[in-house]
């Protein structure tokens, strides 16, 4: 991993790479108090305990890309509700970075739809290509964790995961350059993070344009409540809008089924 190239081409101020790591997010959390130059990038070729929502784990096969970006609190607007848009900023950046790779290569079959599954999963051909997990620490430093199935293969995934994932290599036959991918992704994220302060509505609009769930009948588990209805897209505050018999309902949190 050519970290110097990444540092020279992006807004990242310091970086480290690991062949094998428990979790890039866990390491980023520990780095938050070490006085290192921010933003700090942590990458790994393989995670042994990648995390997802709740008890979920993130599978990272050999050749995949796992990264965490540690941002200081001052880089995120303090307005309530604004910082959660960082979820959409990241997902849009991932979609836009991967799209040229997907669209310029012959796919191995199935649907070629690439886009966002609210709030921040990235799907290709109906399967998960990338996942994002963001943690806001008590001092408001942000850890943005991104896992992308790049040069790994779903054939190596556990039985319970294999039917639900897809990798760039499986879909295109191409082995992608992680450094170039990271540079493209980080530059898009920098632009998106700037928009958090100056044009937050544009973030939700960009996410809405890439949302694959529009028009679908969705069932969302919100705590003990369940909300079912047709997806109307993403609202300006980032909520998923669901059409119900009582009218459109915004959903800010929940598991979409």
């Amino acid at each position: 991993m050519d970290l110097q190239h990444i540092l020279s081409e992006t807004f990242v101020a310091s970086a480290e790479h690991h062949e094998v790591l428990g979790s890039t997010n866990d390491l980023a959390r520990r780095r938050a108090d070490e006085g290192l130059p921010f933003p700090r990038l942590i990458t790994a070729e393989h995670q042994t305990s990648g995390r997802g929502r709740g008890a979920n784990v993130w599978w990272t096969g050999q050749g995949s890309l796992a990264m965490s970006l540690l941002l200081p609190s001052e880089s995120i607007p303090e307005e309530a509700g604004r910082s959660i848009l960082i979820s959409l900023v990241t997902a849009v950046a991932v979609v836009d970075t991967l799209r040229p790779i997907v669209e310029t290569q012959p796919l191995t079959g199935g649907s070629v739809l690439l886009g966002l599954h609210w709030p921040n999963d990235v799907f290709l051909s109906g399967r998960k290509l990338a996942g994002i997990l963001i943690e806001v620490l008590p001092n408001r430093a942000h850890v943005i964790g991104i896992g992308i199935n790049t040069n790994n293969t779903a054939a190596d995934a556990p039985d319970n995961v294999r039917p639900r994932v897809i990798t760039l290599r499986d879909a295109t036959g191409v082995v992608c350059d992680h450094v170039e991918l990271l540079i493209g992704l980080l530059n898009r994220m920098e632009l998106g993070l700037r928009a958090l302060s100056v044009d937050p509505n544009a973030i939700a609009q960009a996410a809405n344009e890439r949302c694959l769930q529009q028009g679908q009948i969705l069932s969302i588990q919100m705590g003990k409540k369940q909300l079912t209805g047709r997806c109307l897209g993403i609202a300006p505050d980032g909520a998923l809008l669901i059409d119900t018999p009582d009218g459109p309902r915004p959903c800010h949190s929940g598991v979409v089924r």
Partner: protein
Amino acid sequence: MTESSESHDVFDVRTIRRLIELMKEHDLTEIDLRQEDRRIQLCRGLAGTVMETVTGPGAPASPAPQPTPPTGNQPAGSPAGENHVALITSPIVGTFYSAPDPEAPPYVKVGDHVGPETTVCIVEAMKVFNEIPAETAGKIIAVLTKNGESVEYGQPLFKVDTTG
């Protein structure tokens, strides 16, 4: 609130129920009634919940919720008449998690002492997991919501006895 001038005892359950209905009907967030040396304060959060505080002779010694409307990441407040009780409120709409993961013990429980930087819970929205600091010091005297429940912007999550 003209109903407050009715001759009924304001502490009558039917009166309180009617007051709650009126608060919902007129989208009021707070009613503060006094009768001689007794007082009742009703606060209604964005989630539609209504909290009651009664102070004065013979009244239960329950601490009061934050009477002001939600103001974002405002962790602590001092309800009227209970200035040793602070509230930790939710800075966003989301899902309340009492522990870092389903297998872990809760960050805090009733009786625990916290400092301003103590993480008391997570509120998650759009897969952004916000670790909420107490931002006040004292003893947790009430956990006001349950693990996995939806919470609203400004909704009280914990009561803290700042003398604890």
